[in-house]
């Protein structure tokens, strides 16, 4: 497995430019005027930071520049970098399991963001920490979703609780919870079907899954994690907002950071909604999941060599 990761990193490193790497050459030695500010604005927008957050950021920059009499353009950059880091740090805490009891984790998101793969990675991580892990296959909608989860589980040697495709996902979640309790598992991760956040009936369905879990075990689900695709644009804000309204999210898993998208969208989400990022996914390998580090992340937005992992 490690050599695969090494290979992947090599393969990707060449093209891995920093999102705002271009900013350095853009501002280098230039006069601090409106024209420059507007160009910086463009670059930030290009990074999916979204109009509102970008305007907010730039207002902050303009104020600071005035107040502190900054006339060095490089300082402006570190100002932005620091501000982004501050935003991301807000209520950012690593996911902690409560020991000595069952921890139920629900994983949700729109279609194709990488929920099932992220669950496999999470399961692997917990298993390596010596936890007893069980998976619940509550994506009963998408063709072959159960098989996909089972295939991962087989590789990891983890049991999957499932029913037929098309069965009631809340019933699967219920079964999985009962099984996890009787097997004295430490962690139960429940996979759910991808759904667009605007489909009312599907959002009702997922609320019901959560209700069934809370009814059977008080305090559960302990975590409700939204999986977001780093390549997603402004729609990710709507995803986070509507899933949060329906389920009270406890955190975000940001996937597909191994592409050219750098997940700038996370900045407005944390800024506007205050939902913390817990993990990032950087590849298809089972080990390619890391705890989110705000400092490293904002560093990586600016420097090509800045380590995300």
């Amino acid at each position: 497995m490690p050599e695969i990761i090494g290979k992947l990193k090599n393969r990707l490193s060449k093209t891995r430019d920093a999102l705002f790497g271009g900013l350095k050459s853009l501002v280098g030695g230039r006069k601090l005027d409106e024209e420059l500010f507007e160009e910086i604005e463009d670059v930030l927008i290009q990074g999916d930071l979204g109009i509102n957050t970008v305007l907010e950021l730039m207002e902050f920059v303009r104020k600071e520049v005035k107040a502190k009499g900054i006339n060095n353009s490089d300082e402006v950059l570190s100002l932005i970098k620091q501000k982004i880091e501050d935003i991301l740090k807000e209520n950012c805490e690593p996911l902690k399991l409560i020991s000595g009891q069952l921890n139920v984790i629900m994983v949700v998101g729109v279609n194709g963001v990488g929920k099932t793969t992220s669950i496999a990675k999470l399961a692997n991580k917990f298993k390596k920490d010596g936890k007893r892990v069980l998976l619940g296959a509550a994506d009963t909608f998408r063709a072959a979703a159960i098989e996909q989860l089972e295939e991962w589980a087989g590789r990891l040697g983890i049991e999957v609780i499932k029913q037929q495709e098309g069965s009631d996902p809340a019933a699967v979640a219920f079964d999985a919870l009962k099984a996890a309790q009787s097997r004295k598992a430490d962690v139960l991760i429940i996979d759910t079907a991808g759904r667009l956040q605007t489909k009312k009936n599907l959002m009702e369905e997922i609320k019901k899954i959560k209700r069934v879990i809370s009814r059977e075990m008080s305090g559960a689900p302990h975590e409700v994690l939204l999986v977001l695709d780093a390549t997603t644009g402004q729609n990710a804000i709507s995803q986070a907002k509507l899933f949060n309204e329906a389920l009270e999210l406890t955190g975000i898993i940001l996937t597909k950071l191994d592409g050219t998208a750098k997940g700038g969208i996370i900045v407005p989400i944390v800024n506007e909604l205050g939902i913390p990022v817990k993990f990032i996914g950087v590849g298809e390998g089972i080990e390619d999941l890391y705890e989110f580090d705000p400092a490293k992340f904002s560093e990586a937005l600016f420097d090509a060599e800045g380590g995300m992992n």
Partner: protein
Amino acid sequence: MPILSNLSEKIQQVFKKLKGKGKLTEKDIEAALREIRLALLEADVNYKVVKEFISKIKNKAMGHEVLESLTPAQQVIKIVNDELTELMGGSQSKIELADSPPTVIMLVGLQGSGKTTTAGKLALHMKKSGYRPILVAADVYRPAAVKQLHVVGEKSGVPVFDMGTEVSPVEIAQKGIKHAKASGFDIVLIDTAGRLHIDKELMDELVRIKDAVLPNEILLVVDAMTGQDAVNVAEAFYRELNITGVILSKLDGDARGGAALSVKAVTGCPIKYVGVGEKLDALEPFHPERMASRILGMGDVLTLIEKAQQAFDQDKAKELERKIKQRSFDLEDFLEQLKEFRNMGPLEEIFEMIPGMNKFKNLQLDEKELIKAEAIIQSMTKEERANPEIINSSRKRRIAMGSGTTVQDVNRLLKQFSQVQMMINRMGAFSGKKKGRKMKLPNWGFPPFI
């Protein structure tokens, strides 16, 4: 949630402001363009594309003909409409068919963009258009991908060719085409594994598949929710594979779909289809001019008519026309109409296509009301359906019980029916009277619950 609604709403607001002014100054146009710029950026349109787009419009709109015309706002809207259409590709682009079958279509894209589902949708679309398609399972990497394609194939009634996951995708593609030729299939859809555009090894694999089977079309499936990165992805796939077109998936959410506007601009590749739902028939050919109208709130009557034609049974429509002329439209016909109306797809989507109707966008259109109405009529006897006037209070109670509704619900339905009946009878009288100038009957035209 209507397609591209956010973008659409913003731009319509800008136009409303413009229309409110009689005369336009350069300043007014500057302000409007700035707002359009923000709306486009917020819709994830690539910022370079936005810049160019805005400057083009500016050049055209600042001229004397526009500013000094009697309807400057209309002129500006027209310019935006034209440019938007142009930006999205000008006119509809269809699948290029091979001179001698089979036509080979390769689907490529990032992980999770919706290739497998799209493959199934396209297969069904082709089948409905009279072709004999076959699906080829060349995704040997993602767990259970082959199985997923089989399920999708089964649902769309299209066979799937697979060789498991131990064979190279190149060989699978070649053998799949061979098999298709031998068995008389005329369209081969190759589902490839999702991959990153910067993954050299896997991109090379696609090139090898391409070289081995020489596809007629290589379609890039792009998630409509993609952000600014869409351009990088499309450029890379274009560079490596010379893709011939794009399918935009997941356009049914509140995706702003800015990717749609950028991808064409940077690669020159037309968008051929858009995916608008989870069901396998939720794939529409992409019409740039219609999409532009939708974004600008001018409705999309053409698509609506096509949808209606697809959903409605022609014979039944003729029968209805006859009944209307004889003024014998009864509850049975009403039920039939309700069903056909629902066949056309989600109500919100339909209303979005009717010009002027997107004002009612926030109206909660409850499909359940339609279902309720169906249930009520279905709980009536044949006699009651033909002669609603015999429905007295005890009958109403029975109908309410049978349909799981209330007497009030039944009353409401009957009232609505009588209004529709009156309207129809008037239409019948009208179409009977005027000779030569026959009125075309819009048989989809009465949503009873809005």
